[in-house]
């Protein structure tokens, strides 16, 4: 028997089998998972914020998946109910994450609804959590002498910015916070729009 062929076909067969089991079958099982009634698709601004969250690599430190109470302290920490496949129907790319250097953010919009808090935290995490190792994202903000019409001013504690300057949230910071506030999975994941009331 030709050993070249054995290795070649054997390699193709094993990886194909794994593909069918690990990806094919779940795709079939999850196909047509309906969008929950309580979950809205991302708005343009939220989607832009989500793209920024992805490109800045927030997901290397933050997960977006809440485990069941039997598996961890997630719910006890106030991170929300256990996540279901339905919660992710609009998510591309998925941002489930593998690290919790920072807290899970699946429900950060529920836990922390204040725009102002988020702005300050993104501008300087150590201004709200002195122990934090989260990077500062100050490049998403503009330092101005004076705020202009329509600017969102960030309330900063004394000493954080030079006297006479104000911190204004740039368009990217606004989009990012729009996204963070949209992270609210407090609906019933199985209640489908148009389904039983």
């Amino acid at each position, binding site marked *: 028997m030709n*050993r*070249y062929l054995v*290795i*070649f076909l*054997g*390699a*193709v067969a094993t*990886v194909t*089998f*794994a*593909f069918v*089991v*690990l*990806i094919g079958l*779940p795709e079939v099982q*999850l196909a047509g998972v309906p969008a929950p009634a309580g979950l809205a698709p991302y708005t343009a601004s939220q989607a832009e914020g989500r793209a920024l969250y*992805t*490109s*800045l*690599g*927030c*997901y*290397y*430190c933050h*997960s977006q*998946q809440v*485990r*069941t109470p039997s598996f*961890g*302290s997630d719910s*006890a*920490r106030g991170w929300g109910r*256990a*996540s*279901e*496949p339905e919660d*992710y*129907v609009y*998510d*591309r*790319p*998925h*941002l*489930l*994450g*593998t*690290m*919790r250097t*920072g807290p899970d953010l699946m429900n950060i919009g529920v836990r922390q609804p204040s725009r102002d808090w988020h702005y300050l935290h993104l501008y300087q*995490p*150590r201004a709200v959590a002195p*122990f*934090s*190792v*989260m*990077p*500062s*994202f*100050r*490049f998403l903000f503009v330092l101005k002498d004076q705020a202009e019409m329509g600017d969102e001013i960030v309330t900063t504690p004394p000493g954080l910015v030079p006297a006479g300057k104000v911190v204004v949230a740039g368009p990217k910071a606004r989009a990012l916070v729009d996204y963070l506030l949209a992270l609210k999975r407090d609906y019933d994941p199985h209640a489908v729009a148009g389904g039983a009331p």
Partner: protein
Amino acid sequence: MTTVPLLYEDSPPPQVAAGERIEADRSTRRPVLLFFHSAVVWLLVGSALGLVASLKFQFPDWLAGQALWTFGRVRTAHLNAVAYGWASMALVGVAVWMIPRLVRAPLHRPAAAMAAAVGWNLFLVLGIGAVLAGWTDGLEWLEIPFPIDAIVAVAGGLMAYSVLMTVARRRTKHFYVSVWYALAAMVWFPIIFVTANLPVWGGVGQAAVNWWYGHNALGLWITALSLATAYYLIPKVLGRPIRSYWLSLVGFWALAFFYSMNGIHHLIGGPVPTWLITVSITASVMMVIPVAATAVNFHTTMLGRFGTLRHSPTLAFVVAGAMIYTAVSLQGSAEALRTVNRVTHFTHFTVGHAHLGVYGFASMILFGAFYFIVPRLVNWEWPKPALIRWHFWLALSGIAVYFVSLTLGGWLEGARMLDAAVPFGDVVTATKPYLVARSVGGALMLAAHLVFAYHYWLMVRRRGPERAEPAWSEARAAA
């Protein structure tokens, strides 16, 4: 230098074998050097980026003025540079060098292999540039954007063409085990890479694809090629055949079958069907079979010859790598168990494990391969044996500090995280001293690489005295 061609089951007479080896080496010299030069540069770039990312935990406001240098991007540039730059290019270089020798045929179309190396570098420069600039596919291990991936698909195709055609023109009847691993890896990698990059996945299903790919990039690509290298070098340096043909057969097929199903253990506790996770956990535990088969084979081949470690830098690195392979694989199987994973998932423990695999196992074997192969490429001996020793001990102590600190710190992090009474801030604070130690480990590794790269540079420029004998044993005689 005379070596007995112990590796072939159907060996030709010694003079024929020597002639064929010269012919094989001549055909691979230029592409292999190009792969190796590139790999060394990517190693330096990648480890410097890794150290910057690690230092950001001590100095979170350092280099925070621009998106380019933010943690999420530097960390990603690091991963891509070391995984696809250093490890992949070095491993492909070794495979290109090894296969013609093992199948007794010169490399088919070396120009295609050269073009592959150029394309691979182009992919990395553009891809890592894109990630730093903020253009990413947003999936771990698959960040480099889809259009740029096309470049590596073409480069990989050229590579596979050159290698597979070489094997097709073999003069041996049988294949040595290194050839199985290398061939299979060259079949596996294109399949998983193209499948995972198809723009059709989304939601939870995409997470499954992501980790099916991510774990296979380690298992079916980096691990397979690293094992091919170790299987070649250990018997070669010792001058005795590998202990058991049968065990290597078991090891190979069990790895092919079980490793390919491991990936979803990265989603334990996550929102995917439970049966799916159970399949991956089972496969992860079954990995004990190929790992034990390979370990027994390597270690019994070494038995009674551990003294050789002192004379052969190649063997010192490769044996360290092989032992770490056993350790990291058993650790991986344990980590997939739900009880352990509850604690370690989402923590720095996993990061320690990943580095033990790609560095302690794969990179150590690669360093050993460089010490064996480069003298044969440039027809020169390593000019400064002391630097090899520095490299070895800096690398080994670096990964030891790195691994031990993140393993302890990660476990502590996980245990505290499970206790809802511990505020999150205390979890973060508890990890800090361990993250300082991690930076120390990373700095040691970077130092090791600077020594290695400097020595490599001297070597390819053929600096230092002309030697009749390998550098290491001579150094010992002088001492």
